């Protein structure tokens, strides 16, 4: 994943850098997808069309973004507008304020989720991969173990250790306060269900 800031990516995209555009898409694809499918609950077919529409609008209008540090809220607003347009086209009722009930809470949660997801890039590649596979791609211990060449029985403890590291990345103060204790066990966590 490109480590450039949003503002740097925007500037490079404006200069016609295709690699920067690909990095921008990689960075925000999950976010846009989640807004369309989780907040606005578009079906898979509609979501695919609107997903492309959102990125087409972003691409076309990137020059109009005044505050390049405000890329994320601008993308969120673009996704919301496209989702509302799609709901209207499909004849579904759209609330007067154009935002489904709970959408603002949903967007705030997605903002937080995107921040957590972005923090994965600050972990080791091994931790990044195992957390992404388990939580984001919904893969089983067996699949992850087979892909990474690890015994399935060690996957749960790896996940717990990597989650603990991710927590330290997100909240370094908490990590220092805990000192160098061993990683927490998986008891009580939602990681035992997919074997």
């Amino acid at each position, binding site marked *: 994943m490109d480590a450039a800031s949003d503002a740097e990516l925007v500037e490079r995209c404006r200069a*016609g850098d*295709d690699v920067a*555009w*690909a990095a921008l*898409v*990689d960075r925000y*694809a*999950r*976010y*846009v*997808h*989640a807004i369309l499918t*989780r907040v606005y609950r578009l079906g898979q077919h509609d979501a*695919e*069309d609107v*997903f*492309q*529409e959102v*990125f*087409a609008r972003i*691409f*076309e209008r990137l020059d109009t973004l005044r505050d390049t540090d405000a890329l994320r809220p601008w993308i969120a607003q673009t996704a919301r507008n496209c989702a509302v347009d799609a709901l209207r086209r499909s004849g579904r009722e759209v609330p007067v304020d154009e935002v489904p009930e709970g959408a603002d809470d949903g967007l705030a*949660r*997605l903002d*937080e*989720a*995107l921040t*957590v*997801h972005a923090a*994965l890039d600050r972990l080791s590649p091994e931790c990044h991969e195992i*957390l*992404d596979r388990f*939580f*984001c*791609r*919904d893969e089983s211990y067996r699949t992850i173990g087979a892909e990474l060449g690890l015994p399935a029985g060690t996957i749960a403890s790896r996940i*717990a250790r990597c*989650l*603990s590291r*991710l*927590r330290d990345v*997100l*909240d370094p103060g*908490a990590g220092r306060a805990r000192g160098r204790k061993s990683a*927490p066990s998986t008891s*009580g*966590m*939602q*990681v035992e269900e997919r074997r």
Partner: protein
Amino acid sequence: MTPEERIAELLRAVPAPPQGWVEAAKELPRTSRELDAILERVEQAERLRELAVRELEELLRAEGVEPTPAVVSHLRRRLAS
């Protein structure tokens, strides 16, 4: 809920979209350049302009561009401007 459980829940909240969607979005700069070339020819050729207005999808296919909804809507906006 422990912090780790909360983090796990947030990771689950943003699953990856299908890879094909992401790859198609990444192709937008290239597609846009192809559309620029088509539009330039449309502006120059009356017959092509008629085809663009009447059968946009057919024109795109003839030019080797997949007429996805996003591409068609992108081109319609460009033609209208």
